[in-house]
Each structure stands twice: as C-alpha cells, then as structure tokens.
C-alpha cells in the first residue's frame, strides 16, 4: 500500500523542491517589488492617529510573523496569496478617502504583475498537491483577509477604516519581506 504512494510522494517532493528552487531566482525581484508597494502605500495620505476610536481585531496569522513555522515550499503559495488579497482589497471603493487615484493605480499594477508572475508556479503546485484546503497556512491567511474585507464593509468603506487597513497592509509587507529573506538563505 505504501509502495503505491512512494512514487507519488517522491515525485511531489521533487517537483515542489524544484519549484521552490526556481522560485528563489526571482526573490530579489519580489523584494524590490515590496519596496515599491510600501513606498506607494506611504504616499497615500491620512494618519491613523485620527482614527484611534476605530479598532480592528483581525490578527495576521502567526506563521506569517514567524517564518520558522513555515516550510520553504509554502513560501510560493503564501507570497501569491498575499499579493492576490492585497490586490483584491485595493480594488475596492476608496472614494471616501482623499487618496490620489494614480497612486492606487500604480499599486494595483505592481500587485497585478507580481500576482501574474507567480500564477503559473502556483497552478503547478496546486495540481500536484491536489488539495489547498489541507494547507492550514493558506486557510489561516484567507480567514485573516476575509475579516479585513468584512471590516471595510461593516464600516462602509469610511476614510478611517481605509486608513486602518492601509496601516495593516504596510505591516503585511514588512512580514512578507522578512519571510522572503528568511527563506533565501
């Protein structure tokens, strides 16, 4: 019984390792992209001190803050998920803020490109692993971003809600950068 699956498991390990290896070549590009995104986010005006009354209870999953809880093979999926979800958040209506539309467009373009570049790798991984629902890191991430979306909706996409979200996303990028650095060694 075990023999039947040994080949599949070995193949899976080979492929994910190969994919993980090929992924490392673009990490410098991802890091520079993160810098671009952080820079653009910092250009969006509005400070959180005006919105102290508002609180958001969503917490980023522990494994994002603490890379030791992750495997190297998870890095691709996690990075893709972050770019994908942050893209989704900033695609929403921010008309109640005084943000410059051009800056948000640049941010979306950058996220879109990163997302696109990772997409084929991610699709290959999903084909092999056959079950994203079993990956609790990705599930935790989706839970987290769903709650961010809910928060925006519950607060009717107000300016303060957006500023709180923006601050949270900037922190997300810091963690992602740390993650990528951790696994590039």
């Amino acid at each position, binding site marked *: 019984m075990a023999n039947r699956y040994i080949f599949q498991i070995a193949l899976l390990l080979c492929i994910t390792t190969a994919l993980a290896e090929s992924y490392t*070549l673009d990490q*410098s*590009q991802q*890091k*520079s992209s993160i*810098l*671009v995104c952080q820079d653009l986010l910092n250009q969006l005006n509005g400070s959180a001190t005006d919105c102290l009354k508002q609180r958001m209870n969503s917490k980023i999953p522990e494994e994002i803050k603490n890379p030791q809880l992750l495997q190297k093979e998870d890095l691709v999926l996690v990075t893709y998920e972050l770019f*994908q*979800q942050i*893209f*989704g958040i900033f*695609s*929403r209506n921010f008309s109640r803020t005084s943000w410059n539309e051009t800056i948000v*467009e*640049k941010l*979306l*373009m*950058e*996220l*879109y*490109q990163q*997302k*696109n570049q990772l997409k084929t790798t*991610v*699709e290959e991984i*999903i084909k092999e692993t*056959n*079950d*994203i*629902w079993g990956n609790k890191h990705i*599930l935790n991430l*989706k*839970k987290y*971003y*769903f*709650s961010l*979306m*809910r928060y925006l*909706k519950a607060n009717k996409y107000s300016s303060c809600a957006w500023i709180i979200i923006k601050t949270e996303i900037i922190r997300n990028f810091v963690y992602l950068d740390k993650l990528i650095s951790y696994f590039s060694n």
Partner: protein
Amino acid sequence: MLGLLGAAALVLVTGAPWLLPEAAGGKTLKPPQNVEVIMIDDSFTLKWNWSEHSTTDVFFSAAYKTAEMGDWEELPGCQHVTSTTCDFSSLETNVYSEIQLRIRTEEGSSTSPWHELDAFTPAKIAQIGPPGVHLEAEDKAIVIMLSPPGTEESMWALEHSSFRYNIIVWENSSGLEESITTAYPNYNVYNLSPDTTYCLKVRAELPLLKKIGFYSPVFCINTTVENKLPPPSNIHIHPRDGFFALQWDYPYDKVAFQAQWLYAFLKINPESYEDKWKPIPGCANVQTTQCAFHQNDFPKGIYFIRVQASKGNHTSFWSEEKRFATEKQTVIPPPIISAKSINANSLHVSIGTSKDSGNGSVDSYYSLVYEVVFWENSSHSERKRLEKTDFTIPDLKALMVYCVKARALLKDDKQNRSSTFSNTVCEEIQPGNASKVWLSVGIGTALFSIIAVFCIMKFISECIKYVFCPSNKLPSTIDEYFPEQPLCNLLLSPSEEQMERCFIIENMNSLTTVVESGHSDGDHKRYSSQTSQDSGNYSNEDENNESKTSE
C-alpha cells in the same frame, strides 16, 4: 426532600434527553434525518427529512457554533420553521472558518435531541453559481460582460480576481460550437458573421480551489449588419528609441484613427471599465496607420490598446484589444575597476561600484556577478572570466602590458541583463622573485660573455701581429738608411708595389756613396765592387722591371 429536588434539578440541568419525553408524556420526538447543507454562492440552505406523522404542528430549529464562539447560537432564518428546509443566508460568518450546525424538532413544549452535523468550512463545500451575463452586439463580434457569481462581499469576496470563465458559443443555425476559457469577465468574441444569431452559456471556475460552477442559462443575440468602416486589424507595438511605435492595418485610406489604452488589471475587474479607456497622447487623431508615443507615458506595467477608425460621421467598432507589456529598463550601473601587479606574473583586480547609483535601494537587491575581459596589449587576444569583486589573474607573462575591463551581470538572470563595460585599466606585469634571479643571471652572463669575446678578439689580434708582423732590429748603419718598414706591410698591404731596397756593392775600393732615395719605385744604390764573385746585381726578380743601373 431537598436531596431529591437537588437531584431532579441536576438531571434537568444536564438535560438528559431520555428523561424529557417522560416528562412530556412518554413520546420520543425524533430529530430531523438526512440533514444537508447546500451553499451556492451566498445562498445557504439547510434541508432535511422528517417522515414522522404528527397530529400537531411540528417545528424545527437550528443553531450554529464556530471555533471563536463559546456557545451555540440560534441560526438566523432557521428558527421554528414548519417546512423541511430553511434559508440561513443572512448568517454573517467567516467563510474560511469551520462552523458546526445542529437541528432539532420541536412539538409543543417538547424537543427532540439535537442532530449535530460534522463541522465544515463553508467556502470548501460551497458551489459556484452561474455568472451574470450581459451581451452587446457588433457586426462581427459579440461583447460579453460577465459579473462574477455572488455579491461583492460574500462567499467569493476573496476570489474575485481568480475566477476563470468558460464560454460556449455557437451559431444558432449551424450549431458550430466554440469553447473559450478566459480570465477576463469582459470578453469579446471576434470573427463572427454579421446579421447572424449566436447563442452562448457561461460558467465560472476557481481552478485553485478546484471548483467548477454551474452553467448560466443560454443567452442569444443577433449580430448587426456589416458596418461601413471595418475596425483596424493586426495591431502591433515596437519599442524604438524612447518611443513606442504603434502600427495597424487598414484596407481604406483617407480615414482618421484614434487609439486608446487601459490598465490591464482593470480587465479582471468585473465592473464596467468602458469609461476607463484613455486616449493615447500622440495617437488621438492620426491620418496614417501608425503613430508613436513616449515610453515615459507608460511606466512599467501591462496595458491593453485598441484603435478605432472614423470617416466623417461614421466610426468603426473598436479593434481587437492588444495586450502590451512594458519592461522595466533595469539600469545596472557599470562597475569601476582597478588593477595592480603585485605578485609574480599575476594581476590583482578590484571591482567596485560607483557611488552615484540613482535607483540605489532597488538595485541593491540584485545580486551581481562580473564578467572580466583581459588581453595582452600587443596581441589583442581576449580572455574572459566570471568572478567576484576581488581576485588575482595568475600565469601572466612578466614585463608584458595587460589591459582589463569588466561589466556587471544580474546573477542567474534569464534575460542576461548586464551593465555597460567599465573603464579599461592597463598594467605592466612585474616579474616575480624567481624570474628576477634568472633575469639578473642572464644579464650577468650576457655582460660576461661580451667582455670575454672582446678579450679573445684582442688576444687573437695580438697573436696575428706577433706571427705575421715580427719587429726585426736591423744594424744601426743600415737602419739609418732604412726606415723601419714593418714587413707585415708585405702581407697586409700587397696592393702597393713594394720594391725591395737593394744596395749593390760594386767596387770595394771606391765606395761611392749614392744618395739613397726613399722612393719605392726602385732607385737603388750601386756600390761598385771588385770582387768578381760579387759582381752582379742582387735584385728581386719580381720588382726588377724597372731597375736601372746608373753609374
């Protein structure tokens, strides 16, 4: 008594179900059977069977619990329902969190035991419903505008940009089918026939979650009659010296064109982006089938471009949308190279970066390797190495001049991007200690041999002088008449007619002194002598041609 009361209270509190029916009068209420959760997009339904007969009305109530909650709460929309199905779509829950449901039957004041379902993740069990479809017709194309299943903040809120759509289009009369898969909710089907009926159905998929949705109902539309002006075709874009050249084909002339652009990421947004197209500066109204626009107008990114023709009051439909990606010009500054010959027959090279890199922080994330080219100044044959920033090139020829230059390359780059070459540095290779010794030995030997040769030559010349040119001492009386004439003249300068000077002694008694003339042409003294034996001339045969005797 108190103890009994206490025990009864305890039993009631623990809610031992097998006691309650007895309290109600002996009838055991059965919970619902075959309970099913059906989730399609944002519609959440609970279904069950209950086949028991009952005289009175039977109700059903459900409750839910998530990991974050401490206790069971009432499921909205499923309280005291009479039918065997209820809708709890108004439940606000994180669809990626596990949730538990339970349901029970209620009749009068009695309730059945809870039927508990296994915990599940809503997003995992949910199915994808059909997308919304809106169609517009052109003469040879159909514009399809899809809206993703579910509302914006619902089940698929996180997956909006991940949807893939599968469109099946067929011509109504012929039934020829075409299956299209696209990531864009706004998709145009081209190359159709004018004035024809086409039908289609669409379904949405989430490949990363391994979900395939239901097909939409069939929608049909008629394409319009052929437009007078066809849309431009065959759009292509070439970068050219800081500009992008946009070109297209058009069958007619005397037609004006305008080109528009759109951010690519807007195409995956289901909202209508018709108003988001912007004119391309420099291509807003051109009379030729080409135009140019600045590269600076389009920072690095992915765009779509479309072109429209117009003549008088008529305009064509928009051309096919051309995807267009501008690559970031990764500027890698050239390195600065310095070289020094320190050790024997080798060159120590140092590569540094210039301080003034404009996009500094971004470039510092790229790891670089250096391609070093070096050559002998005379021969110009180049050799290359890939190195780090500080290294030594060994095995070079001493006292030769070598030149070095280098450029930076992105490590493991598929595009082989590199900087321009650095400055060229030329250095003379110092000889090593070992070769210094050999060199000095060589020089010493050379000097010595020169001196030796010189001495030998001198010695030989002395020998020759000694052998062929002896210094004879003649008696003083003769000597005063014969100036020293080295005999080596005979050998060394035979061209001169040498006459031996002879003295002819004829008469011993009268010794007539004839004044000698030093000429070599043969005057000689004659001394008369009585000795008959000695009479006669002693002369050199060779030189006696002009001998004259004078008396």
